[in-house]
């Protein structure tokens, strides 16, 4: 049983569980938290789960958990682990069921005064135009050929179909597609689930938010990103929908059956994995890449629908600042033992944050670094940050949000959805949703304090604050 005495303080924002804590750990486990958060973390099993991930074959340096960490179902949420590409494993559970769940920030050239008279109408129209997809369908129905093209082409394919602009591609992590995607590795079940889900938000903590920039921390980077005070922005949070969920389900099963073949012993079956270079590992990676491309295309379609509403009501356009994934496995080069090595980086509820001059960044962000989007919980601030060289220590990874602090059942017992909507309305925030009862699960009280989470990220040097935004309207989709 893990206690505070098992942790070694590295600095004010970083604690480590040494490899010696448990016989099967291959590397130490690190948690980016401050002293105050450390007390909270022992309330759930996130640290035990982090220790479990340190047992995965081929894991290098450290496994890490970000300050928004909480208990998941195998891998902790907020978890980051890098495995050697040649000797290590890939694990679907360490990526998550919602493959490439992520966020995208759209920028307008308007300020809050410009949209104030239209806000209610904008929120209504966005809610009406962008389906949640639960019990409803998206506006595009893909046939077999169409689906395969989306799985291969991601954002690029969506733009070819007329659902965006060429510069949208530049402003996406991995330019909105992973080239190793192979649609033939995605099951018919997964494809049939995703067939009419393109351009839908999904449920739970997925949303679209109209926001306002209220604070600029770094004028130079803000200018480069195109951010200014009182600017209206739109944040989209969604992923690969039923297609991604099915891909993960299929491959957790497949890998579970292959564990004996590769003589892999795991403390948790949900960490089921296979060597990256094995047929199972390769097949999963190609299917995961395809699902990731579907998610990027999904966020592109939602962008297109948001642009249609924006154009219709305001006769204005929206630009993409950046799009990041926070449940994904990426092949990246990082320093291991003083040498650059190719790794498979698993980020589950964690976001990539590349520094300035990184070759994977688009030209216009090369001089400053990658935009990093961290949404707060409903009704609270969200942050835009920029990647730093200091984040080398975390495989250039940061948190993905505020992180849950209360169970959904406890939130529903404590908070009435209707009261929450009224409370948000009193603060000037419009909420459009189909189910007030379900909304209680997403109340701010159910999450950690985003300012404290960002404080740790910035304090640890993993990313630098650029701007803070607050919500004006939250849209959950019909």
């Amino acid at each position, binding site marked *: 049983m893990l206690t505070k005495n098992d942790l070694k303080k590295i600095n004010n924002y970083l604690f480590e569980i040494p490899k010696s804590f448990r016989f099967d750990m291959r590397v130490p486990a690190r948690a980016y938290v401050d002293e105050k958060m450390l007390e909270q973390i022992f309330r759930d099993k996130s640290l035990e789960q982090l220790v479990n991930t340190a047992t995965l074959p081929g894991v290098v340096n450290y496994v890490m958990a970000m300050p928004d960490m909480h208990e998941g179902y195998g891998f902790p949420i907020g978890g980051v682990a890098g495995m050697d590409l040649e000797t290590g494993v890939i694990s679907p559970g360490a990526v998550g069921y919602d493959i490439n769940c992520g966020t995208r920030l759209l920028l307008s050239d308007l300020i809050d005064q410009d949209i104030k008279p239209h806000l209610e109408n904008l929120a209504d129209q966005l809610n009406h135009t962008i389906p949640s997809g639960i019990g409803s369908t998206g506006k595009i129905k893909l046939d077999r050929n169409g689906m395969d093209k989306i799985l291969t082409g991601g954002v690029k394919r969506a733009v070819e179909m007329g659902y965006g602009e060429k510069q949208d591609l530049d402003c996406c992590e991995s330019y909105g597609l992973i080239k190793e995607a192979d649609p033939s590795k995605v099951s018919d079940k997964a494809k049939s689930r995703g067939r009419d889900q393109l351009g839908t938000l999904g449920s739970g903590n997925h949303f679209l938010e109209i926001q306002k920039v209220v604070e600029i921390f770094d004028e130079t980077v803000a200018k480069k990103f195109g951010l200014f005070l009182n600017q209206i922005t739109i944040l989209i949070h969604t992923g690969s929908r039923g297609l991604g969920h099915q891909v993960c389900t299929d491959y957790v099963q497949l890998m579970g059956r292959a564990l004996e073949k590769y003589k892999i012993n795991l403390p948790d*079956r949900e960490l089921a994995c296979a060597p990256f270079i094995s047929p199972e590992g390769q097949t999963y990676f190609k299917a995961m890449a395809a699902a990731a491309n579907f998610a990027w295309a999904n966020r592109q379609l939602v962008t297109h629908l948001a642009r249609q509403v924006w154009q219709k009501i305001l006769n204005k356009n929206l630009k993409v600042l950046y799009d990041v994934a926070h449940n994904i496995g990426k092949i990246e080069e990082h320093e291991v033992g003083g040498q650059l090595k190719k790794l498979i980086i698993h980020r589950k509820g964690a976001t990539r944050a590349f520094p300035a001059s990184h070759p994977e960044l688009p030209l216009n962000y090369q001089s400053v670094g990658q935009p990093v989007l961290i949404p707060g919980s409903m009704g609270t601030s969200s942050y835009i940050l920029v990647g730093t060289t200091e984040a080398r220590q975390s495989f250039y990874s940061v948190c993905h949000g505020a992180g849950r602090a209360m169970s*959904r059942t406890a939130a529903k017992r404590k908070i009435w959805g209707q009261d929450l909507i009224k409370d948000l309305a009193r603060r000037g925030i419009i909420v459009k949703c189909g189910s007030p009862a379900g909304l209680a699960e997403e109340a701010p009280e159910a999450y950690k304090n985003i300012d404290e989470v960002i404080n740790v990220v910035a304090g640890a040097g993993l990313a630098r604050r650029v701007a803070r935004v607050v919500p004006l309207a939250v849209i959950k989709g019909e």
Partner: protein
Amino acid sequence: MKQKYEILEHPADLKIRAYGQNLSELFNNVLLAMTEAMKPRVIEQNFISQKIDLKANNLENLLIDFLSEVIYQTDLNNLVYSRAEFDKINEQELSGKIFGQKIKTLETEIKAVTWHDLEVKKENNQWRAILIFDL
């Protein structure tokens, strides 16, 4: 009346404990627990049936495969499956039908059933299962 299931505390996801005198009852009570958690808005009261036939190496695999299939069918057909009738069910095989109602929407969507902390065992002549679902 014997308890069918309980919804347990979990920080982010759905954790349930279900009971049954036999496997059929156990599997049905898991479906009931899932239905309560999803809080469907049913728009047609009549039930639509779907055949289901599965084989697995052991009971854990069978239960996970069964629930994965139910979750898949729910997403595909917009039906919430709250009960099942089995012609045959043992620790390695099941065959029968699941019964679902058309929904307008769900308050909470279940993304998948996980292997994490999975427990299926018989104690004092009663079956018990503990499962965590990703929401």
